[in-house]
């Protein structure tokens, strides 16, 4: 039986922080303690990737292709090697031949052959900024000068920049060996279309025939970047005994180890990856770019450690981004607003190598709604842009933007309120996702729509002529994945918790909280730390909204286990049958001692106490979010101002509500950037023009209202505390909500992202 519990409160900039009070029935969970990494971060003491300093460190620099599409005829590195201070130069020729095999990285998967060609181009440069060669030198200035001395001869080829270019007859081919996977059958001709797949349910034609209204629209979205603050870095030392150490700012140390191992053909046992603090990832710090190159350089430089750090321009040119897309959506509904059929066609730009997030997009695109008759076609297409990487609910934002826009058009045609049409069609437990996966457990979509419909925001009327309001819903699958951790009971009654999920959003705190709750001790008594790849068993990436869920589950298991072992040990010492633990006190027979005293006693009377847990939850709770945007459009400039924004999200159980709210607000902010101004701008040669944060326009603090959050808690029964992943679904609805608000404000609908001022102005003229 589903228990729906709504913990609602809106935060805004003018009230003091919410009280740190645990949720009902808990002593820790639901409170808001200070994060263990907080002091180091606010004092600047925290060590990030670029802060790594080692004895004898060399500084590397990567030479990148000025061309979007070119055959590499020759590379002459002799002049660079001759420059005093240069210790090593590497090119793609230094890479071993990689296996033609797909590696699953959790949030994304890639063929290792392509991964290898992405970190140092093999025979072709496939995008502006593609790495061609790299240098290690005594200082960064020398390295920079040296790459200027590398002579590369290119045969420049015509660039293929969009879905339409790539699919055109006689389009230039990017990858000679690529064949289309056409619904499971491999094609025979060279192509830029890597894959076409389809999900089908019911009878599409009958569904459309039963519709009162049918709306069909085509949308275009541009390439956007994750925009993490910390640029990519990688430092490596190749020891003369063949042992490799890598210092990485990454979402997954084991992912770095595996990829480096596969690309360089070094056994995983010879690679140790040490995580640093990480300044944001959003999916973009799962793939390796620099680490294997740093290893190669270190090896060539006689084992001296080598550090590579990207500039912001390199980050934008060569890492991330997520796919631009063309999306066609056709939805039919009966006179009551019930959807009778839907067909979605998703054409996603993978960048230079196959592997766009179109697969995930195909699940997101219609997922919030219960639709009997549907078809989803997904197309994965290579173009001369950087290889797409995972980005927060990969593929979801573009897909939902299209669906939510069309749904509002249908609501307008039928005269149905935009919240109401979502209540009419919203998916419930028992309904199926487009790919047929059934929601067997409770889901919270309708609760989030209801929360928005009842919010102060929705019930406050707009006041201006050029103001508009839009709603959109979103879905994200979330993930379980593998986690490992150990916990050591210290003699002073504290616990050292060693885990390997790199902490991007406060997960050390939320994992320590789950452990403390399970044991029944204070949060401050738990000392969490993120260890290297030699310190715990395999651990999947911090991604897929899985860390608080899975690593938290491991922490819970360890808490239960530690408490039980402590009771047993005390029972032995006290020679009693049973020991109880309540309110911080162990008791058995006439004995009553505190947790701290118990720890000391255990140390004095026997072997040290340590527990561990490894988990791989196969099922996990999906996330849903409904969002509400108010905008105002300046009719003379086309500039859109977000007046007010509210997000309701089913968070399962908010372990640390402040960090959950932070995730919700962060996802919305990124989605606002996606909606209004962020886009990759290329010239006709396929060169990226706006490779800086001056012209790649992410929202600044001055562009945003306080994002109001409503935490809806529909606990997920498969987790001891009801946790669902909360990191991603929040970015799915914003572009759709804002598109609906802008359409409402200007009285005409736009079909392209971003809705930048020039485009809005054009739309208003029509």
């Amino acid at each position: 039986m589903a228990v729906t519990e709504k913990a609602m409160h809106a935060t805004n900039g003018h009230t003091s922080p919410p009280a740190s009070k645990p949720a009902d029935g808990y002593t820790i969970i639901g409170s808001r303690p200070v994060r263990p990494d907080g002091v180091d971060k606010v004092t600047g003491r925290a060590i990030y990737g670029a802060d790594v300093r080692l004895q004898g460190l060399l500084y590397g620099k990567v030479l990148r292709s000025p061309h979007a599409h070119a055959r590499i005829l020759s590379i002459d590195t002799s002049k660079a090697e001759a420059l005093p201070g240069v210790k090593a130069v590497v090119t793609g020729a230094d890479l071993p031949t990689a296996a033609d095999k797909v590696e699953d990285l959790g949030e994304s998967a890639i063929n290792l052959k392509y991964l290898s060609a992405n970190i140092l181009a093999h025979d072709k440069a496939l995008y502006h900024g593609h790495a061609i060669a790299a240098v290690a030198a005594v200082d960064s200035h020398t390295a920079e000068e040296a790459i200027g001395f590398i002579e590369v001869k290119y045969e420049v080829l015509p660039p293929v920049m969009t879905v339409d270019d790539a699919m055109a007859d006689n389009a230039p081919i990017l990858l000679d060996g690529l064949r289309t996977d056409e619904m499971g059958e491999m094609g025979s001709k060279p192509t830029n279309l890597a894959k076409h797949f389809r999900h089908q349910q019911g009878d599409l034609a009958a569904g459309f025939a039963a519709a009162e209204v049918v709306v069909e629209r085509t949308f275009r979205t541009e390439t956007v970047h994750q925009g993490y603050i910390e640029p990519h870095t990688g430092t490596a030392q190749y020891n003369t005994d063949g042992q490799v150490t890598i210092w990485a700012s990454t979402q997954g140390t084991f992912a770095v180890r595996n990829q480096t191992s596969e690309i360089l053909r070094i056994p995983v046992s010879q690679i140790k990856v040490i995580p640093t603090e990480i300044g944001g990832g959003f999916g973009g710090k799962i793939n390796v770019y620099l680490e294997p190159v740093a290893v190669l350089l270190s090896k060539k430089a006689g084992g001296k450690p080598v550090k590579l750090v990207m500039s912001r321009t390199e980050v934008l040119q060569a890492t991330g981004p997520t796919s631009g897309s063309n999306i066609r959506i056709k939805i039919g509904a009966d006179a009551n607003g019930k959807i009778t059929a839907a067909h979605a066609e998703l054409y996603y730009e993978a960048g230079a190598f196959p592997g766009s997030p179109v697969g995930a997009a195909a699940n997101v695109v219609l997922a919030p709604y219960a639709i009997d008759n549907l078809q989803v076609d997904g197309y994965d297409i290579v173009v001369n842009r950087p290889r797409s990487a995972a980005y927060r609910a990969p593929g979801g934002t573009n897909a939902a933007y299209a669906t939510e826009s069309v749904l509002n058009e249908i609501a307008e045609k039928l005269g149905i309120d935009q919240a109401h049409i979502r209540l009419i069609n919203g998916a419930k437990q028992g309904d199926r996702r487009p790919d047929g996966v059934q929601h067997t457990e409770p889901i919270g979509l309708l609760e989030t729509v209801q929360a928005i419909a009842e919010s102060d925001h929705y019930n406050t009327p707009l006041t201006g002529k050029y103001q508009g309001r839009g709603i959109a819903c979103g879905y994200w699958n979330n993930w379980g994945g593998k986690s490992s951790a150990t916990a050591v009971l210290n003699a002073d009654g504290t616990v050292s918790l060693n885990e390997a999920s790199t902490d991007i959003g406060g997960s050390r705190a939320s994992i320590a909280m789950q452990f403390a709750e399970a044991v029944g001790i204070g949060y401050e008594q738990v000392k969490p730390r993120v260890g290297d790849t030699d310190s715990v068993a395999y651990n999947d990436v911090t991604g897929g909204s899985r860390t608080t869920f899975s690593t938290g589950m491991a922490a819970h298991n360890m808490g239960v286990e530690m408490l039980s072992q402590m009771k047993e040990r005390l029972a032995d010492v006290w020679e009693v049958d049973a020991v109880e633990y309540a309110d911080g006190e162990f008791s058995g027979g006439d004995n009553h001692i505190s947790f701290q005293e118990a720890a000391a006693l255990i140390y004095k009377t026997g072997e040290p106490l340590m527990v561990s847990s490894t988990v791989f939850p196969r099922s996990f709770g999906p996330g849903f979010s409904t969002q509400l945007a108010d905008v105002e459009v300046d009719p003379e400039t086309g500039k859109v101002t977000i007046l007010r924004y509210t997000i309701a999200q089913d968070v399962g159980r908010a372990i640390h509500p402040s960090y959950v709210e932070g995730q919700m607000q962060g996802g919305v902010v990124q989605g606002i950037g996606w909606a209004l101004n962020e886009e990759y701008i290329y010239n006709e040669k396929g060169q990226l023009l706006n490779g800086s944060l001056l012209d790649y326009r992410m929202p600044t603090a001055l562009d945003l209202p306080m994002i109001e959050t409503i935490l809806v808690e529909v606990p997920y029964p498969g987790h001891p505390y009801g946790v669902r992943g909360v990191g991603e679904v929040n970015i799915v609805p914003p572009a759709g909500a804002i598109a609906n608000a802008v359409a409402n404000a200007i009285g005409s609908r736009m079909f392209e992202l971003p809705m930048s001022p020039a485009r809005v102005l054009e739309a208003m003229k029509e």
Partner: protein
Amino acid sequence: MQAFDFVSARSVDEVVAALAAGGERARPLSGGTDLLTQLKEGRRAYETVVDLKRIPELMEIRIGTDGLWLGASVPCHLINKNADIQKMYPALHDSTGLIGGTQIQGRASLGGNLCNASPAADGIPNLIVHSVTAHIAGPNGSRTLAVEDFCVAPGRNALQSGEVLVALQFPAPGKNFGAAYLRFIPRNEMDIAVVGAGASVVLSDDGQTIQSARISLGAVAPTPLFVKAAGEALAGQPVSEETLEKAAQIAQEAAKPISDMRGTIAQRKHLSGVLTKRALRIAIDRARGTSTVDSLGRLNGNG
């Protein structure tokens, strides 16, 4: 970035000597917020950089009956927080408050903004509408130049080899004077102007008639544009939306923008008119001491 010699000059003569000796390979430095980024990005390379910030004349703010003497290297924040300047030269206050953020304003000077000669510089249109004269020192002595003639091409100014900009001289504003600078950017911070517009007016004592006006546009031509005809068309006209619309039309026609990633020709021409009108409204409000428009120059929060 390559190594260079750094000269910390203590007088205008020392600067002129160092620049003349270095020729094309030497360059003056005020706040460095343009120059150092250009050097770091490899867009320019110099062998000698001559710092101007220790020369008293270049760091001076002097307000007298004849107007304002503004040393070329005075940083924006000192200009922006000066209450007399805010009252007398309101457009100067506008632009010094929006060039960069707090850190940049602690360094960035208007002399640097002008000498860098960016078509989109936020400091230059207001210098033009305030009728500023540039005081220049060089190997052959001193000379002056109307600020609208100072920029000659994108990134190129009218200074000859060995010359340095010493100060910007603002005439006394007179009564019933008002001015404003507005720029359009897609976000609310961190962007280079898609279009900028400066406007100044002198009104009749009853505030009903425009006696004279000056209009200037940024980012719509190879150099910041002085739209003389738009100002002239306003002279002797009653203050009304129709009058302003006419000036906006002229400004829009005078704009000769290009399309690039920051804006299209059509958008920039359109915005030239919109911003001219809005800047004029603010300038008129300021001349009259009224507040009929919002901070963006909009009448009712809309157009």
